[in-house]
């Protein structure tokens, strides 16, 4: 019976994952699913409106949904806008402990429907995230908006009065070189950009003050003839109908604004195939001067707008269906592809697999201490399930983009995770001791978290600049070097497991230590091969496109560092300069080397250039390096010292917990903060030196190793 538990648990999770694959249903009376699937061209890429909505929302708000409910200072719960109308202050979203509250939320497509077709409502949604205290202070928004765990969100109505001020600041920030901009200026630019995205989206489908687009188009069409006639007469200096001319030119102004939209919603007339020649609604309306007709696509959108604006769900859904059906004629492949992307957005495969990785990692770690094969096998199966979803996600992205898996930093993080998971599973299959699965789930989880944070900058499937537009090199150089990163991280995390298990009492039996050493050695061999071939292929690509094989460019140097480091580990091992523990410590240092070449070199223009400033990512990179160096320091002391001096283990744990808290809680780093940290580090170092200097008596030694 006991052996069946792993299958049972996995089947349960599998069913959960499968059930989420059902065809999504509209969230309200207005069919947001259909709307989200409409194919459009934005930023050079054919995508569903849902992706436009999601990427815009992520850039403006940093989240994928917009909450509708919350509470005020008095604790009354309800619709945020009603609370605000009733004079509620200090609005907050659901607190993390309020499990009973289930706030209603708009998904990205629903939000975009409001923005495009009923902006008066969208203007009252809390979407503009501003977190820089100085900027909040300057704009006088300290008390306004909606709060959630220290982050503040504001409505467009709250932001509108400040638009000129923000624009002024943004102009001066824009003149400054990117690397030299202060955090304040960056915050200003981000806010300015968010406001512009919002304004642009509001004026994409219809002018933002339009109430009934169908009626407007009728009067526009009727005004063209008389308007042109009046204009002609005016030009000839003859008497003309001033009203007709004004009406006509007011339409011209309105539609001119629409034609600046970056979302090209109207497909070209000819049959499907090329994604060129898509155009904005505004441009099409202006060309209607010549044709005197309005394209059916625009009529459909106008009908959707009118219906949505007046809350007529039936009419809206009908016009939407009509439009989607009309696309079936010439745009079947496009509709199919954007449909896949819509499903991909809604399913969020990487989020789902990271949840599974988290469970699996906890199970794998527990299996070491409980020595439970059931737990270990459950962990393995869950990882396999997560890896399956991870793989499906990767393949879907490849299908949508028509590209190899890695095209930018975001997808490299997803792929590093994927490679590490597979490698970990192979190790688990060979050794069956819960170590491979712990590595697989941990590196998988961490890299997906990194990927999530990288995705906050916008579209993760954006088009590629000319020089990168080559599937051959993306498929060879980029994929191989990313696998090199993944395997170097795997060997580094294996080293961490070795060090931590040697540090914690009684958790590193000699057999485990031996097999860990073999794993690390094998994985380092693998990384040497992949990072070398990947780096040289990169050189060959550079030779093909820039005319030099090697140019000592930072990214090239970063890759070279990984190659040299792996080669160094192997040669040091062959030469007997390091043994088991040395191998582990060098492997952990490989994490620092890889993190530098993956992210550090990208920050060279940012992090090291300007004083007193650290970008968020640079801070995390430094914290990561700091933890790796501490692990190496722990690894420098032989396991039997830790085993013989349990008090030292507890002291180190305590000191590190204090340091961690200190680093994470201190916002401003002045002399006092650094001095306190240095003091704690000095204490720890003293302890380390004491331990190294201590000799164990032979009897104690025997006791410990037994």
């Amino acid at each position, binding site marked *: 019976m006991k052996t069946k538990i792993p299958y049972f648990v996995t089947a349960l999770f599998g069913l959960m994952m499968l059930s989420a694959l059902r065809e999504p249903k509209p969230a309200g009376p207005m069919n947001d699913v259909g709307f989200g699937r409409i194919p459009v061209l934005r*930023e050079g890429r054919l995508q569903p409106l849902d992706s436009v909505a999601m990427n815009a929302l992520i850039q403006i708000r940093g989240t994928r949904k917009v909450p509708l409910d919350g509470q005020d200072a008095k604790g009354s719960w309800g619709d945020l806008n009603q609370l605000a109308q009733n004079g509620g202050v200090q609005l907050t979203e659901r607190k993390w402990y309020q499990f009973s509250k289930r706030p209603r939320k708009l998904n990205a497509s629903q939000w975009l429907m409001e923005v495009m077709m009923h902006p008066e409502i969208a203007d009252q949604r809390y979407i503009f995230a501003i977190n820089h205290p100085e900027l909040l202070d300057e704009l006088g928004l300290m008390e306004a908006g909606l709060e959630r765990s220290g982050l503040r969100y504001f409505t467009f109505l709250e932001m509108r009065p400040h638009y000129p001020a923000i624009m002024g600041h943004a102009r001066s920030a824009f003149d400054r070189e990117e690397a030299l901009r202060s955090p304040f200026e960056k915050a200003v630019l981000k806010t300015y950009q968010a406001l512009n995205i919002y304004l642009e989206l509001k004026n994409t489908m219809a002018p933002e003050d339009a109430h009934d687009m169908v009626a407007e188009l009728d009067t526009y069409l009727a005004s063209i003839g008389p308007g042109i006639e009046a204009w002609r007469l005016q030009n000839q200096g003859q008497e003309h109908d001033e009203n007709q001319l004004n009406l006509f030119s007011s339409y011209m102004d309105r539609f001119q604004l629409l034609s600046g939209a970056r979302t090209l919603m109207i497909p070209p007339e000819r049959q499907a195939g090329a994604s060129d020649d898509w155009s904005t609604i505004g441009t099409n309306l202006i060309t209607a001067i010549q044709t005197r007709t309005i394209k059916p696509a625009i009529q459909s959108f106008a009908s959707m707008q009118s219906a949505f604006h007046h809350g007529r769900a039936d009419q809206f859904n009908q016009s939407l269906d009509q439009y989607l059906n009309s696309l079936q004629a010439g745009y079947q492949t496009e509709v199919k592809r954007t449909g896949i992307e819509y499903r991909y957005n809604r399913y969020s495969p990487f989020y789902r697999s990271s949840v599974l990785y988290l469970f699996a990692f906890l199970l794998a770690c527990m299996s070491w201490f409980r020595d439970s094969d059931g737990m270990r096998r459950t962990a393995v199966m869950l990882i396999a399930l997560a890896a399956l979803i991870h793989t499906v996600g990767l393949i879907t992205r490849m299908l949508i983009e028509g590209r190899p898996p890695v095209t930018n930093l975001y997808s490299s993080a997803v792929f590093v995770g994927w490679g590490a998971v597979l490698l970990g599973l192979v190790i688990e299959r060979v050794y069956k001791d819960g170590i491979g699965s712990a590595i697989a789930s941990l590196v998988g989880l961490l890299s997906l978290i990194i990927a999530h944070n990288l995705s906050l900058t916008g579209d993760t499937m954006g088009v590629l*600049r000319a020089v990168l537009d080559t599937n051959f090199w993306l498929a060879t150089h980029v994929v191989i070097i990313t696998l090199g990163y993944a395997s170097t991280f795997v060997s580094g995390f294996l080293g961490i497991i070795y060090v931590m298990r040697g540090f914690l009492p009684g958790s590193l039996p000699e057999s485990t230590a031996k097999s860990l050493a073999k794993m690390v050695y094998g994985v380092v061999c693998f990384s040497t091969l992949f990072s070398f071939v990947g780096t040289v292929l990169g050189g060959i690509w550079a030779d*093909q496109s820039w*005319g030099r094989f090697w140019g000592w460019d930072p990214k090239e140097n970063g890759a070279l560092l990984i190659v040299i480091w792996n080669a*160094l580990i192997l040669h040091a091992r062959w030469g007997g300069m390091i043994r088991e523990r040395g191998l582990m410590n060098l492997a952990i240092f490989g994490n620092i*080397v890889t993190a530098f070449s993956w992210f550090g070199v990208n920050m060279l223009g940012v992090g090291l250039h300007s004083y007193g400033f650290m970008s968020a990512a640079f801070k995390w990179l430094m914290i990561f390096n700091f933890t790796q160096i501490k692990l190496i320091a722990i690894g420098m002391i032989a396991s039997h010292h830790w085993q013989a001096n349990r008090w030292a283990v507890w002291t180190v744990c305590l000191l590190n917990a204090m340091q961690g808290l200190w680093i994470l809680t201190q916002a401003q780093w002045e002399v006092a903060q650094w001095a306190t940290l240095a003091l704690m580090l000095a204490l720890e170092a003293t302890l380390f030196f004491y331990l190294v200097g201590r000799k164990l008596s032979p009897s104690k030694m025997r006791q410990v190793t037994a």
Partner: protein
Amino acid sequence: MKQLWHLITSLKLTVVCLSFSMLIVFVGTLAQVEQGLYLVQDRYFKSLFVFWGPEGSDWQIPIMPGGYLVGILLMINLIAAFMAKFKWTRKKIGICISHLGIILLLLGQLATDLLSRESAMEIKEGATSSHSSDFRINELVIIDQGNPAKDKVYALAESLVQSKQGAIINNPSLPFQLKIEAFWPNVSLTGTLEDSQGQLKADHADYQRVEATTGFSNVYLKPMPPQTSMDSRDTRAAIIEVMDGGTSVGKWFVATILDPQTWTYQGREYSIGMRAKRYYEDFSMTLLKATHENYTGTNEPRNFASRVQLRNRQTGEDREVLIYMNHPLRYQGLTFYQYQMTAGEMVQRQGLDPSSTFQVVKNPTWVSPYLACVMVGLGLTIQFMIHLVGFLRKRRPNTTALEPSSAST
């Protein structure tokens, strides 16, 4: 002696060299932020030692080995180990192949450093060119325009101009001599020190007037430190006095951003100027069309492509070639890459002539990394496969033996 040989062939030396190479690459990467790529390449990677001295002082001391030193040591170590230790047995064949690949790669890169040449060829749409200009090296040129069919160009390398300051240079084919009065590796130039209101410009106080008697004489210059940015080049400048025997014909101020200046001497027209070193080829290229495409609705470039007509009078070739991103043209030992482009809608709207610039690379050893990659990749794969198979074979009986015990826990 035996000890030295032991050291040279030892893995310890390998590890030490690898550690130093990591240090050099790391420090050299960080240094690029302040010093720019070219300077760092010369100081850290293409040098025997990295020198350091306090800012503003004359003396410098070596603080760490440079790329060449470590590279040479690694080569010696590797070749010596090959001679002493490597065995061409079936078990070690992968190691041997991959290390041979490394030797090839390192030697190939050294050869590239020594033998390769990079220059740029800019052509306007419809125009023809048969020369390219060096990216960094300049030269002083005297152009004899006496023969209307073909100019005769006398060039003097800038290194000579720099080292021969104050000296008189005599070329028997020229009817005059050149005296190099002054040379500056990089300057900032201005035509006037006053702004429109007649006030002395604040930041122009340290400019000095150029002492030239002919041609550009109303020029002020300020010596500048070398450029660190990748895309800007130094402005070299010099004052050249043209002498006829002992008497001065005139003093010319030349600089790389100024056009050559022409004068008549003994009935013939001559020009003098400073410009990027030119390389002339036996063939010519005519730019038929430069295309700069963006993704629809964005400013993101999708492709740069140049259609050129390649003509070679010696071989009689006359064909059309398309050069675009990731697709260079390889011809007569040269490779032409799409490098820069002034074309597309924006350019048309501004009324500029479309033009295209190719990077022209001459690198006789360009094949070496391709071969090296295959050798190292193959060697490592073979070696690790041998390891893996051996490891799995050893393991198999173990796992079956362990199975019952793990099931019982």
